[in-house]
């Protein structure tokens, strides 16, 4: 009895020790910065000119006393929910349109969605404004009167644009799920006489609920935590949003961090509740839809151009071609008042953007390095953290998981500010650990911003893996690291590559952390773009953005090529193995018959 008891507690301790690296990582990157910020809701003078630990509830009282805040929370909730619902519908259509289409169409849709994902929010928002505003590109093209797009610059337009923007989150989760779902589940239904629509409603869709919810929850988090879009699309109708309230508290003198922290706390709590509800709902419904044996033949005959494919292409036209095309047109126009005549087009702004003294190029190079590092580290840490969360289920890792996901909703500027407080804190001075103002601090902030997404994506991929695959490797004496590298990584490689490029692009265009944390004198690329926009050089700013995006797309294309090479090689060896299997099976049946 005692022995088994002590063994139990030893294992308990070992569980926590095993989670220690991920806990430490989580603490350094997310929890500590966030806590230093949130602590100010009760210790408003923690980071004052003279530090004071006198607690006060006045910041929180202020936050809750302002009726505008409640209205803002409700607005954000509604907007987030509605756009998440639409994004889920659109993303699901795209996923079906892509997975069950011919290779060419599939690649087209897939790439399109990735570009939507990569494209920085402000580029998309700016593109929509250029397109839809009075005298904008659409008005020029179709000779529309002033005021034609009044409906667009309102909640309606906001929901449309946001839904289109969040398609990728749903698409990634769903396409993976559709690919992995055993074809037998549908076949069984068809043989029982069910028509396709009935089957879709009763079997396919319910089976995809986990993926659907995973995608929808990120879409909601994004919508709930979005400010940029609302600011760009509805400047006149001005809908009060929780993120706007935060932004206002940081941008009106005197800057009020305690109230920003209080509002962020609301944001985090709402997100946590949303995720908790989702998980509660999911409990008991988690089921692995991958059959233990892969069936290569099952995919035959399903590749056709369906109506879903056609609709996906239309959706992508709206989500991608329209806004991005407008941005590109804008970057080519001589000046903002010029009409869309051919003689008004010029490459002048690109020329200027590239010339932009050595500063522009220097910042681009600097950012490429930041991006490469943070993308590599995000990929590695994301893989490792998701791995420990899935296969070493302890209270600690589950806790980390939940908080991590809730931080997706924390606006970038809040987290970045948290980094200043955390890593410029007076208590770090004697330890010589004031890393604020160094490249390391900025790199850590990039990592903190991208890690929750990477983990979320990786969790989705790993959730569909049979634990036996790991047990098998572990039983052969493989260490955890070996299991991760030799078994898990090859299976979730596509997602790993995805997180790499997601972070690469994210870092290329990340603004809040870049501007708050960059080392004095060494601005990164997003800063340069922002500076150009701040100086009202829209065309030149667009040109810089387009240049950055082209770089990202080229890298992404190379990455995909590399990945498909790798996957191709993998499949070849797999089929060779299958072919070798046949004779051995024949041999097996020659054993004696009882």
């Amino acid at each position, binding site marked *: 009895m005692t022995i088994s008891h002590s063994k139990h507690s030893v294992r308990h301790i070992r569980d926590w020790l095993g989670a220690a690296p991920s806990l430490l990582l989580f603490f350094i990157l997310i929890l500590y910065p966030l806590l230093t910020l949130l602590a100010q809701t009760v210790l408003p003078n923690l980071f004052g000119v003279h530090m004071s630990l006198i607690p006060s509830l006045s910041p929180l009282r202020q936050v809750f006393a302002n009726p505008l805040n409640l209205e803002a929370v409700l607005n954000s909730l509604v907007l987030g929910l509605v756009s998440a619902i639409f994004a889920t519908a659109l993303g699901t259509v795209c996923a079906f349109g892509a997975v069950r289409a011919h290779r060419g169409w599939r690649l087209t849709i897939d790439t399109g969605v990735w570009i939507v994902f990569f494209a920085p929010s402000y580029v998309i928002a700016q593109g929509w404004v250029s397109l839809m505003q009075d005298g904008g590109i659409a008005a020029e093209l179709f000779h529309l009167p002033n005021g034609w797009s009044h409906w667009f610059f309102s909640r309606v337009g906001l929901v449309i644009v946001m839904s289109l923007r969040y398609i990728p989150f749903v698409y990634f989760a769903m396409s993976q799920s559709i690919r992995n779902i055993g074809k*037998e589940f549908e*076949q069984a*239904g*068809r043989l029982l006489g069910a028509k396709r629509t009935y089957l879709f409603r009763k079997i396919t869709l319910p089976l995809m609920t986990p993926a659907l919810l995973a995608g929808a929850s990120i879409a909601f988090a994004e919508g709930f935590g979005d400010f940029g879009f609302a600011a760009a699309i509805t400047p006149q109708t001005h809908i009060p949003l929780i993120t706007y309230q935060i932004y206002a508290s940081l941008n009106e003198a005197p800057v009020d961090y305690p109230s920003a922290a209080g509002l962020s706390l609301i944001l985090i709590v709402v997100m946590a509740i949303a995720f908790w509800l989702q998980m509660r709902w999911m409990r008991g419904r988690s089921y692995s839809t991958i059959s233990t044996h892969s069936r290569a033949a099952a995919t035959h*005959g399903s590749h056709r151009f369906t109506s879903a494919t056609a609709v996906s292409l239309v959706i992508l036209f709206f989500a991608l071609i329209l806004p991005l095309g407008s941005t590109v047109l804008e970057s080519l126009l001589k000046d903002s008042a010029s009409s869309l005549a051919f003689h008004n087009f010029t490459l002048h702004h690109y020329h200027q953007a590239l010339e932009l003294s050595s500063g522009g190029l220097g910042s681009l190079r600097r950012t490429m390095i930041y991006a490469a590092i943070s993308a590599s580290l995000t990929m590695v840490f994301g893989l490792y953290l998701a791995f420990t969360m899935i296969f070493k289920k302890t209270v600690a890792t589950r806790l980390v998981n939940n908080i991590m996901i809730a931080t997706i909703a924390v606006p970038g500027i809040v987290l970045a500010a948290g980094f200043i407080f955390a890593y410029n804190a007076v208590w770090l001075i004697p330890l010589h650990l004031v890393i604020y103002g160094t490249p390391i601090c900025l790199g850590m902030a990039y990592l903190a911003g991208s890690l929750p997404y990477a983990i979320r994506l990786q969790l989705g991929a790993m959730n569909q893996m049979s634990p036996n695959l790991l047990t098998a490797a572990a039983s052969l004496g493989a260490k955890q690291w070996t299991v991760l590298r030799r078994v898990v990584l090859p299976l979730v490689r596509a997602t790993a590559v995805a997180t790499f490029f997601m972070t690469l692009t994210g870092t290329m265009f990340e603004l809040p952390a870049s501007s708050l944390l960059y080392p004095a004198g060494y601005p990164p690329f997003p800063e340069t773009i922002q500076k150009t926009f701040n100086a009202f050089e829209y065309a030149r700013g667009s040109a810089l953005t387009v240049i950055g995006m082209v770089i990202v797309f080229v890298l992404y294309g190379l990455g995909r090529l590399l990945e498909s090479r790798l996957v191709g090689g993998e499949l070849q060896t797999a089929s060779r193995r299958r072919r070798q299997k046949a004779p051995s*099976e024949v041999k097996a049946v020659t*054993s*004696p018959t009882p």
Partner: protein
Amino acid sequence: MEIELKDVCKEFNGKKVLQGIDLSIPKGQFTALLGPSGCGKTTLLNALAGFLDIDGGEIVVGGQTWSDEGVTLAPEKRNVGMVFQDFALWPHLTVYENVAFGLKVKRRRAPEIAVRVQEVLATVQMEGYVNAYPHQLSGGQKQRIAIARALAPNPSVLLMDEPLSSLDAKLREQMRWDLLSIIKSAKITTVYVTHDQMEALSMADQIVLLHDGIVEQVGTPQELFDNPQTVFAAHFMGAANVIEAEFRESAENFSMIQWSGATLRVHGSPAHMQQPMVLFRPSSLRLSYEATPSSLHSSLPCIIQARAYHGFTWQYRVQVKDATRQLPQTVEVWSADEFAIGTQLFLHVPAESGRLVEGGETAKLTHLGG
């Protein structure tokens, strides 16, 4: 319903998976499609289910054309029941909902559905599990529900795709009995895909042996086991010694062969065979310390190379010294007597225990002991 397949062909990316299958599946009978991986049996089943279009030939069921070149009747219109390898029970539905699905699709009224579901669940002895979810069931229970689901709407044909392969060995044997009794009581035309010859032998009324997309041999289990036409069939249906031998003379049904210095009388004539070979069942050979050649059997000197104990019998690998051909041949023999490895013995080959089979070009691939 009776199923007729005429010259059914199917290609995947230029690889001919079905190369002209001609087959008749009798009504109300249990037909096993048997063969190794890649032989085309699953493709054939998918063509029967309507999941695959065929490139040539036709599938006619009960006088109705199901598949033809360019025409495929949709799966949902075929009234076919199917049991999948990993059951494919919908994880989000209860046992009741899984089984009732096909009836709901056919718009039966609720009371009628309830009665029918209880009925099929009784058939598979799972009455008590209506509210369970699939993940709460054991492998064998899932299997029963999968069968119940397939049977509920009274299909005209039941297709089963290696239904026992995801179960462990003990359970598999138990399920074999249960499956057989369920299917026999349902009196339904059943097509059963398997790579396990024991399943096919023990359950089927008719076995269709497939090999590389062609029908190798069709017959009752006894016919296939006792009278395999080819080396492939001989090996696949169970343990077999296939040897190359010299032909001395042959009559209509018998041949005289020379093997290891002895002349043996075997069944069959090499007349229409590409590459005749001789098959001996391991159970028909005997081992003895003494050479006692007679008209009833020949005795060949041999030595025990390896052995395995199977509880009721010993399985030996013995090397026969072939004086004429220099090369020793390894033969499998089953015997109740125990012999040590290395023992010098005599192999008694009873007269007429051998049978000529077609070696053809597949012989080398599957030759025992290479």
